[in-house]
């Protein structure tokens, strides 16, 4: 299976490439108030407002560096209610895709709760790779505030 690989700090993470619609460079984001801190803003993606999550901020509380290799992955986010939305995910060091054998991933031993976005973990010769489940990046509460306010705007 094909994955987009990126780094958060020194650790490597992957996102299922099927979920990725487009990889775009860093763009200017409009401020989106009243949302959790890791939502860095709204990006104007082809005349459509798309909220952007900074994954480094979410994981470590530090914003991603503004370098060429930091990119925004536009992913198809399926919410708990079954709705599909576009979601931007800012990731660092997104320069490659990798083919990984799904069989080699181990189920994460963490308690499977709705906020557990690390679904599976594998190891290779360079260390550990963690699979980020984009559908769980937002908690139910954050999802409601985020897309709820977007829906209001559209209406």
């Amino acid at each position, binding site marked *: 299976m094909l994955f987009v690989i990126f780094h958060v700090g020194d650790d490597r993470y992957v996102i299922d490439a099927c979920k990725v619609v487009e990889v*775009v460079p860093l*763009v*200017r984001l409009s401020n989106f108030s009243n949302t959790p801190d890791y939502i860095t803003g709204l990006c104007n993606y082809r*005349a459509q407002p798309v909220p952007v999550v900074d994954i480094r901020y979410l994981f470590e509380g530090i914003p991603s560096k503004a370098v060429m290799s930091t990119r925004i992955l536009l992913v198809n986010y399926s919410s708990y209610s079954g709705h599909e939305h576009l979601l931007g995910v800012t990731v660092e060091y997104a*320069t490659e895709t990798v083919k990984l054998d799904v069989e080699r991933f181990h189920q994460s031993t963490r308690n499977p709760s709705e906020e557990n976005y690390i679904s599976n973990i594998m190891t290779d010769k360079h260390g550990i790779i963690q699979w980020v489940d984009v559908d769980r990046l937002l908690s139910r509460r954050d999802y409601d505030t985020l897309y709820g306010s977007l829906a209001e705007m559209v209406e």
Partner: protein
Amino acid sequence: MGEPIDNCWSTIGIWSRTDKKCPRLQEVLHCRNCDVYASAGRSLLMREIPRDYREYWTVLLAKEAATKSTDALSIVVFRLGDEWLGLPTKMIKEVSEMRPVHGIPNAKSAVVKGLVNVRGELKLWVSMGTLLSVDKGENIPSPLLRKNILERLVIFVKDSEQFVFPVSEIIGTHRIWRDNIRDVPVTAANSMYSHLAGLFELDGRHVGLLDQELLFNSLKRSLL
């Protein structure tokens, strides 16, 4: 910024001018297969984003994606005297260098010039210029070039019948979106225009797309 890049590829690698060679070359053969080289290249992406980069992409991303037409036609574009013409690539079997033409005694048709030997097969040599009333013209590309150096023979096939015709020049195959092919002006009434299916522009040239059915019918009629 991180540490300076060690350009081992030009000191001990494939671009080295000395005899000292990297032991990894035995294994990877060329630096571009080596992960040291790859990661050095990728480290260029660790640069800070240039000024205006963010603004540039913001504007670009905000635009609606251009709806790309997927309906394209592959066309071989050639010059016949002063005219630029095109034929669908699938009709062209081969383009070859010029070969001598052998006249046919008592041939009455002005279009048929004779027979040509293409790898042991005799094919009918027709003059597209005569058929379409296009003059050979004086369009010699450059005085430095020998005249006729660009001339080619085009072998084209339809319904398993093959014809060979010479052209002044060929500028390759081009992918043309059907949306960009315009209709032929109705006022244009000479023999060439009546054989066109459409017109399109290519690098500032107006190219006439030949209608294969019309062309073929005219060719067959001219053989009688």
